């Protein structure tokens, strides 16, 4: 019996060691699976204001501590779902620069931890007045939808403009080579060259439109939103991205015109 035990001890120990090393790696949750940190895991993917409509109706009917707290929990939970979604947008966005992705992740992490802390404060409130004040802080201290969400989507759009402009610049180089070759073959390239010049000008205009926008967007905070200074900056960034988008569209049309003129 002891011989069998001795023979098996080594392999079994090795197997146990291998399983103990491998299993945590296989069962590791994704990096954003942090719901266990939360007081209550959100049950609904709905993140619109309508999600908490019934909770607010209850508050209007009976402004009790429990009802105010429930409304606060609902508002926080839908924001946590939104933050998860935004974190996914940052993670999956192929065009975001590393610096922008890091800055956005820092904003999202800070917002999430702040909201979870506030949730615990609301749960510990013992009066309607203190709970109501804490619920108000969900809006004034975090600005998840009017600020944080806009920061993520506008910076992503900004980086998309930059990425498209870079690709158009590279395409312009290719088209310039094609024009040169066609000219060498005796083809009249006047029209193609005109479209290429227009393409380059439009691409340059797009890049100029969004220059510095991302930094300005990322610098905004809930406090600057409350002071009234953030919204105009975000709106201006949106307008410049729209203008850049139009310029990029023009550049793309001109690129196609170059290829058509070379046929």
């Amino acid at each position, binding site marked *: 019996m002891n011989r069998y035990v*001795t*023979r098996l001890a*080594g*392999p079994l120990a*090795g*197997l146990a*060691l*291998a*399983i103990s*090393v*491998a299993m945590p*790696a*296989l069962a590791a949750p994704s990096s954003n699976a942090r719901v266990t940190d939360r007081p209550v895991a959100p049950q609904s993917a709905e*993140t*619109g*204001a309508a999600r908490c409509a019934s909770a607010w109706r209850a508050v209007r009917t009976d402004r009790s501590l429990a009802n105010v707290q429930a409304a606060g929990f609902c*508002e926080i939970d839908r924001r946590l779902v*939104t933050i998860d979604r935004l974190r996914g947008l940052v993670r999956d966005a192929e*065009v975001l620069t590393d610096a922008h992705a890091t800055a956005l992740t820092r904003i999202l992490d800070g917002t999430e931890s702040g909201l979870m802390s506030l949730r615990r404060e609301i749960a510990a409130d013992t009066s309607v007045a203190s709970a109501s004040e804490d*619920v*108000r802080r*969900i*809006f004034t201290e975090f*600005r*998840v*939808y*009017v600020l944080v*969400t*806009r920061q993520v*989507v*506008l910076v*992503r*759009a900004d980086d*998309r*403009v930059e*990425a*498209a402009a*870079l*690709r158009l610049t*590279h*395409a312009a180089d*290719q088209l310039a*080579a*094609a024009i*040169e*070759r066609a000219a*060498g*073959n*005796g*083809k009249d390239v006047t029209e193609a060259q005109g479209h290429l010049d227009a393409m380059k000008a439009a691409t340059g205009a797009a890049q100029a439109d969004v220059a510095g926008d991302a930094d300005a967007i990322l610098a905004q905070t809930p406090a600057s939103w409350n002071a009234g200074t953030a919204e105009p900056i975000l709106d201006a960034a*949106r307008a410049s*991205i729209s203008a850049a*988008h139009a310029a*990029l*569209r023009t550049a*793309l049309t001109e*690129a196609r015109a170059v*290829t*058509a003129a070379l*046929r």
Partner: protein
Amino acid sequence: MRTTTRHRILIVISAALVVVVLAGCGRRVDFAGPDGPSPSSVTVGATSLPGQASQPAPASPDPTSSPGAEASPSTAPTDTPIPSPDLASIEALLSGIDTDLGDDAASAANEGNPQ
């Protein structure tokens, strides 16, 4: 003495087992690994070439660029494929900007009001 030798053999087998299992895990991670851009093909005119914007244009010899070369539509360079720019990926980026601007416009309505 024999027992010691047997122990050494068993330890070697155990270590090999650990290496095999860990190698299997490593292969699994590699498989799920980096998501690179999928190659695309763009057709411009009569020329269809793989077009990836981040790739440099393939260098192709161009006899017409040499001084004194005869410029004629029937010369060899017309057979050289023109590198086609990756306009499809640029179109996709423009669509993404549209989506972002739409998300931006819709976000404010979700803020709600504590009153």
